[in-house]
């Protein structure tokens, strides 16, 4: 059902867990599949994603998709991050069962939500500074 490559990544995800001091976080969930994922980003002053981690309630493909997305995101600008699509994630993952491909869409949604959250935080901070 899953390739050894996917299972190895699932057994030792590199980016699982909380990210202290993150300044952008995004959530996405799929009611049918039951998955809930949260992406945490640390974005530096040059709008570069310097670190990224995830937490997930989901199956093997969900965890691997999150882990791969984190790896893809680190070092990217926010714009580059926003341009990552579910197809890019699927391509990085390699072969997964077709009925699990929806997880890449979820991850894409979480990335967008995390970056949007970062912008909102920035906006709030700016408003605070003005006041």
């Amino acid at each position, binding site marked *: *059902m*899953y390739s050894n490559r996917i*299972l190895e990544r*699932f*057994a030792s*995800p590199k980016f*699982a*867990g909380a990210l202290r001091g993150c300044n952008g976080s995004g*959530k996405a*969930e799929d*009611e049918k*599949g*039951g*998955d*809930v*994922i*949260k992406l945490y980003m640390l974005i530096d002053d040059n709008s570069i994603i310097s670190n990224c981690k*995830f*937490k*997930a*309630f*989901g*199956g*093997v493909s*969900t*965890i691997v998709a999150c882990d791969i997305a984190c790896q893809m995101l680190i070092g990217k600008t926010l714009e580059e991050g926003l341009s990552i699509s579910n197809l890019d994630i699927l391509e990085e993952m390699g072969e997964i*069962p077709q*009925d*699990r491909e929806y997880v890449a869409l979820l991850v894409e949604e979480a990335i967008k939500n995390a970056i949007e959250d970062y912008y909102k935080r920035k906006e709030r901070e700016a408003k605070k500074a003005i006041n």
Partner: protein
Amino acid sequence: MKKVYLDSAATTFVSSEVLAEMLPCFNTIYGNSNSIHSFGREADAIVDRARDRIANAINASKSNEIYFTSGGTEADNWAIKGIAHAYSNKGKHIITSAIEHHAVLDSCKQLEQEGFEVTYLPVDRHGLINIVELLHSIRKDTTLISIIAVNNEVGTIQNIKAIAKIAHDYGVIFHTDAVSAIGSVKLDVQDMEIDALTISGHKLYGPKGIGCLYLKNGIRIEPLIVGGSQEREKRGGTVNVPAVAGLGKAVEIAVRDLYINQQKLKSIRDYFIRSISEKIEFVQVNGHPQQKVNSIVNMSFEMVDNESLLMLLDMEGVAVSIASACTSGSNEQSHVLKAMGLENNAIHSSIRFSFGKNISKADIDYAVEAIAKSVERLRSISALTKAGRR
């Protein structure tokens, strides 16, 4: 790495007694049981013996009430469609439950496409159908009621005798899928007034690809498989003599050893649940608290996805399952737990553990350690917080 198999409800190993019964049928007694020469008659004697053993084990009044099939799925398909079609001039309404095996549910769905009407009885939180609701569902045109004796995902035992009695009070034929029941609970088709009953070989230390349908004499059925005069012209196809021999022996042993096996499995099951509750927090046991078989435990581990837990346990050498093996290749979650009204998160966190007769306390200790470790690991990265809050 140690390996522990906690998936006996998916399939079991073939016991040595069963294997010994089967082996001569591959290369010594290899005749076609339908041939009239001595080779055939010898094979036919093996088939008759298996039929007798099964009839005795379930207290059928005649051995010719046992029909061999390719497994439980075929027997379920045949019972539902064959009986429904045979009695379609009387009526086209069938009653079943929402927690049947897919072999029954999908057969009913097919009949619906043909114009039959099907009532899917709901179940309570413990997986029991409501007898009053059953009574209210019976109509003048109801011809068949099919209720699973023991649910294969949660182990809940239905009140089969009472259900069959009601069916007969209204002149309705009663079938039960007893695949998970045989060897776990005592089955007496005469005392329990069962008209048709499905048995499978590979859940009771017999071979895969063999099963049978008990069909009370006098009940009409249309064939599902045609193309030969085998099984008294009701089921075409050369009889799989080695598998039939194995099934006969497996059913005989399952009933012979029922008491001793159940005593052992009860101790194992209780020890497993106790050990899990001592080591892991936020766990719920799904199914009926008392009216359940000893070999199946269904549990939900809050905040933990069941597929991830299954795969981590597999990496530790512990085999378990999500829902039933028949659906676990797909992304579909348990229709049984859904019908029992479990929360979505609890369904996605549910694992079925099922114990075989060879399991030891040391196996349980090893498995529980692996479960505790894996649950802790997945909870540490779970996007859910305690009590399923998102």
